[in-house]
Structure formats: C-alpha cells, structure tokens
C-alpha cells in the first residue's frame, strides 16, 4: 500500500491531513479475491441454512403447533412431532453435562494447578487427543461394555432412590429376584454417560487453556497473602477463567445435543416421552434422522429437516450465548503485541 500524503501548507495546519491511498492492481485483485471468497462461503452457508429453513418450515406448517407436542413420528399421515425426540435429546444432553462438567473442571484444574511439570505436558497431550477420538469409538464402548456394566448400578439406584420420579423404573420389582434386567439397558443414562465421556475431554481442554492464562502476578499475590493453593484457585484462577468454564460447558453441550452415532448405537428408540432415565428406551433428534432418512419420501425428508432445524436452532442459541458470555469475561482479553 503506497500512502501519499499531501503536505499541508503552513497556514492550514489545523486541518487534518488528507491521506490518499494508492493501491496497485495486485492489491485490487487481492481484495476482490478475498471478498469473493467471503461471499462464496456466505452463499454456501446461507444456502444450507435457507434450504433447511424453507424445507423444514413447510413441514412445520403442515403439522402446525402440534409439531411441538406430538410424540409420534408418522409424517405420511401428517401425525408427527418432536415432543418425544426433543425431550430425549435434552435429557441425554443434561445427563451428559451433569457428569462431564465436574469431571472436566476437576481434570483441567488438576492439570493446570496440581500436576507435576513433567506429567503436565503428557496429560495435556492425552486430553487433547481424547477430544479428537471419533465418536463411534465411544459408541462402541457404550454398546458393548457400559450397557451391561451399568445394570447393577442402575438397579441399585432404582431400588434405593426409586421414590425420586426420574429414578423410578415402572415395571421393575426389586423384591423379585428373577426379574429381567434388560429393562435397565439402552436407557437415557447409558447414552448420557457415553456422551459425557465424549464431551468431558473437549470441555476440559477448553478450560485448561484458560486456567493456564490466569495472570501469574495475581496468583503469586494470593499466595503471598497467605492463601492456600485451593484458596488461590478459588479466588484467582476460577474468577479469571469463568468465561472459559462457561465456554467449555456450552461447547460440550452443543456437541452433546448434536451427537448422533454414539447415541444411536446404544439407545433403543421409543416415540414417547420417557422421563425415567434408568428405564430402557429413549430417543434423540439426530438418532431419529439416522433411523428414518432412508424412507425417501420428499415430505418425510422435509419433516426430518424440520426436526434438524429445531436442533440447529437450539445449538446455535447455545453457541451464541457462550460466545457472548466468554466475550464479556476477562479470559478472552488478549494484548496487542
């Protein structure tokens, strides 16, 4: 960029100087190229969003408000809704987050504050690698290992805490020793634990990065004032990293809501709202799409798009909420070098 300055004469020195930027043709070409790249991406992404909205809303228009309250999924008789799948999606995601957040918070705190220096690099690598492990691997673990391993635990919880509605398992009699335990498999809890294992390293990696940036001066200040290590973490590291903690949770929540294969492998799909998280059978929007996409009726595809659209909107709202929150906190502040 060549900047030519028109030198002011002495009399008009109070006027701001005019700068004229002379650009070569290479710069013009570069600007045009970059702008067209941005436009192309915008068009592409906008097209996906618009297509989703148009096709989805046509199906929602047919179903009307009952789209949100119907539990069955039978688009051909125009009797369909997302009440069952949406509730299942949210229940699974909430279970996953409830398990994953303490795990992620604890692990990231351990790595950034407690781990010996030699171990720290190794642990950072391990957690980051775990965040990149494909979700199908977690699904395999859930389907072949956890589904059986969780039965005695679920049985114990439902026997002792069955008076809490979500832990109740209708049709299970704890006093009957011959009762079939298959009622405890393929439940929302199994799916939630699988997703939590998937989400925890992702959240932990985000949180760890923010904790490591907590200003060293404030840490030393707290310690010099006689604080214990835990006191320092509570008063310096966590307040500083609050944005990162929330961002990590939100990122994990977004992944948990959209997860397909890990959930699809372990659950048995039912089209009723099932709030008993230990009882077999649940559903999620992405599993519904994976199950039903093959029935290539255009209207059914539109109905699936509508379900996908709802999922997309929820995830988007969570993402934007996260970016607003982490934008306001100190964690995101970076210095210009």
């Amino acid at each position, binding site marked *: 960029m060549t900047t030519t300055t028109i030198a002011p004469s002495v009399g008009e020195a109070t006027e701001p100087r005019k700068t004229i930027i002379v650009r070569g043709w290479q710069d013009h070409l570069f600007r045009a190229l970059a702008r067209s790249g941005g436009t192309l991406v915008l068009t592409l992404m906008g097209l*996906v969003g618009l*297509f989703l909205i148009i096709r989805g809303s046509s199906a929602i228009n047919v179903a009307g408000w009952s789209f949100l309250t119907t539990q069955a999924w039978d688009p051909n008789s125009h009797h369909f809704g997302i009440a069952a799948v949406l509730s299942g999606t949210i229940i699974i995601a909430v279970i996953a987050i409830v398990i994953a957040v303490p795990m992620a918070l604890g692990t990231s705190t351990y790595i950034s504050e407690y781990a010996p220096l030699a171990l720290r690099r190794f642990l950072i690598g391990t957690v980051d690698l775990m965040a990149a492990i494909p979700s199908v691997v977690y699904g395999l673990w859930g389907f072949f290992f956890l589904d059986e391993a969780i039965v005695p635990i679920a049985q114990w919880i439902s026997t002792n805490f069955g008076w809490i509605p979500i832990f109740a398992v209708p049709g299970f009699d704890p006093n009957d020793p011959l009762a079939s335990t298959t009622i405890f498999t393929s439940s929302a809890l199994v799916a939630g634990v699988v997703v939590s294992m998937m989400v925890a390293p992702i959240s932990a990696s985000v949180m760890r990065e923010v904790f490591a940036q907590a200003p060293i001066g404030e840490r030393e200040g707290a310690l010099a004032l006689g604080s214990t290590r835990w006191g320092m973490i509570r008063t310096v590291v966590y307040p500083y990293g609050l944005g990162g903690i929330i961002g990590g949770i939100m990122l994990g929540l977004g992944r948990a809501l959209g997860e397909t294969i890990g959930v699809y492998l372990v659950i048995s799909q039912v089209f009723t709202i099932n709030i008993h998280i230990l009882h077999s059978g649940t559903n999620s929007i992405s599993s519904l799409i994976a199950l039903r996409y093959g029935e290539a009726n255009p209207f059914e595809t539109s109905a699936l798009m509508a379900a996908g659209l709802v999922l997309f909107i929820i995830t988007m709202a969570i993402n934007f909420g996260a970016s607003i929150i982490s934008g306001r906190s100190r964690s995101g502040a970076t210095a210009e070098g």
Partner: protein
Amino acid sequence: MSETTMTTDREFSEAAVPAPRTSGRTFLPIRQPEATPQPARSIGHLRREDIFRVLGAAAAGIALTAWLFTQVAPFSGVLPFIVLSYIFFVAFYAILVRFDDTLVGVKDKLATVLFNSIAVVLLVALVDIVVFTVIKGFPAIVHLNFWTQDLTKGGPLDPLTVGGMLHAVVGTLIMISIALAIAIPLGLLCAVFLAEFPGPFSRVVRTVVEAMTALPSIVCGLFIFATWILLLGNPTSGLAAAFSITIMILPIIIRSADVVLRLVPGNLKEASFGLGASHWRTVVHVLLPSSRAGLMTAIILGTARGIGETSPILLTAGYTTFYNFNPFSGPMTSLPLATFLLVKQPSDTQIARGFGAAVVLMVLVFVLFLSARILGGKGAGQLSGSGLRRARATSMRMSARVSRRPVVAPSDGGPYAVPQAESGQR
C-alpha cells in the same frame, strides 16, 4: 545536578531545618558481617505426615467398608464397595488433617485429594475406552491381511484371516482429500477476508460462519442427501460424502483460522506496511507465515473431526466391501461407517472386524494429531531450534548484503535525500 538546582537546594536547607549537607554523597548501608547466605529451602517437598495421613485414611476407609459389607449391611458389588470406601477415605482424611491444621488447611487438603482423584477417574475411563476397543479388535488387527485386503471375501462366516479394511482406509482418505481440497483454500481465503477486511459485510460473514459451526453433523449429511441425492438425482457416492464433510468442517476451519490470524501481532503488519509493502504482500509474507503453525493446527483438527464423523457419511456414501477408487460413481465406505455397520451385525467375526476398523481409525487420528503437535503448537514468532538457526542465517546474509553495498555520498538533495544507487540495487 546543574548549578541552579544546587543553589536552590542549599538555600532551601539553610532556610528550613539546619540539616546536615546531603548533596553529592550516598551512604551505603553497613552490611552485617555475620549474615551468611541461607541455603534455599525446598517448599515443595513431601512430608512424612502427608504420606502417613493418606495411607492411614485409605486403610481405615477400606477396613470400615469391608466390615460394613461383610458384617452389617446388605451391600454387594465391586462398585458400591469402591464408592463407599472412597467416601470413608475422604472423611477419615479430613479428620486426620484437622488434628494439626486449621479449617482452611483442611479445605486445601481436601481439594487436593478431590482434584487428584477426579483427574485419575476421567483419565482411567478414557484410557479404558481406548484399551477396550483395542482388546476387542485385537483378534482382527493381528492378522496382516486386515491391513492389506478389502472385505469382498470377508463375510460373516469367514475367519478373520480373510478380508481387511484397506478399502475403507482408501475411501476415508479419498473423501477427506476431496473435502480438504475444497475446504482449505476456501476456508483460508475466507479467514483472511474476515481478519484483513473488517467491515459490515465481513461481520455478517463471521456471524453466519459462527452460526454454522453449530450445525449438527447429521444435518450436514441430511442437507446433501436432500439436495445432491434426492433433488438432483445423483447416486450415493464418495463425492456426496466429501461434500457433506466439507460443509461440516468449513466453518470449523474458518473459525479457528480467523482466531489465529487475529492473534498475529499488529506491529508485525505495521512494520511491513511501514517498509512500503503492499497489502497482499503483507498478507502473503507476514500474516500467513507468522501464523503458519496455528493455521496448520486449525486444519489438522478440522481434518481429525472430518475423518472421525460417521453420521454425514452414513446418509451420503452408501456402503461397499470392495475397493472403489472413483469418488464420482458407485458407493464408497469410510472407516467409521464400516465400524458402525459391522458391529451391528450378529456375528462375532464381523464385530471383531468393526472394532478392528475403529482401531485403524484411531491410529489414523493419532498420526494426524501427532503431526499437528509437531507442526503446530507454537505461537507467532516462537521458533524452534532449527527455525531459529534459519532465521539467524537469513539475518546474517541480509546484513552481509547490506554491508557489501557501496556507500553513496549524499547528493545535493539535502541530508535525507534518497541515495541514487538505491533503485539500481533492488
């Protein structure tokens, strides 16, 4: 001190208190001859009490739980035993610490124990997931044919010595290559646009891209399925799967590349502009090289995500058991899809093959990740050993070139005139 201040100083002191003259002399504190340097104290060492406390609390917790399980309550099972022992252990530990520490100290010790155990639990669980997959896939992956053959001959009843996963590896690599061939240039161009041309339009683009990172992967597959396959009538193919992966990873790559580009220190770019470089030269020679490592990480993490995702491929690629090198026609499979479909079959050999495919996939991701750690992971301006040597060598060369230049006496144009030889030298 100048003459005038000296004068005022003297006047001031004479006018006010009759203090001793202090100007011009500094008194050093007298050192205590007996003060010897103390040896540095280690503050991080482990005390004997710490170890005894942990061991004692653990022994007491396990013993109490064992007594409860065998003598008192109708508990059973390994997991309740562990959980109950742990709870008792924490309680005993708190009591032991309380004997000779304040409440603040007890809290600190408990937090240490808690964080240590949470980290151990999560890492053990994660390692367990990987080890479980490897163990279940072990019967398949030990045979060499698993890595070198396709699955045409490997039916559910055939032994594991027949058939392999190479067709899925080929399919995975073809799909991800096509996806990256579209996503890398477009993504980097868009990221440069977002970082270098701020304005209302780029703000719109950034918002839309950020929104699209929330698009669930299965919806990407559903979009391609509804448009490319149903609307335009194309068959399921590797190309369709590559398109759905592109839509999925494009926003991810753009977003992380945008963050990396905006972290490039502004004074580097200003220096480039100040030396008279044009905008595109600044981008090509300053912006992109100084953020190369971060961009590489962004791309490789996007790649790892694209390779591991099953759901968009499930909808768009079809499934085969044979080699298909042509992404434009015929179904194609990928490793996660093969894993997913094989383990759902009611046959032990197929399930073992599915786990084997998952192991191959993990190896692929691991290699990618390792290369990301080697290539990336450093901020702008932080050079590795060899990079530093290279930069030094370049700098020496430059300085030698400058010193070889003929010294040109300033011409008549004044002291700051441009030397006439300048244009000829470049």
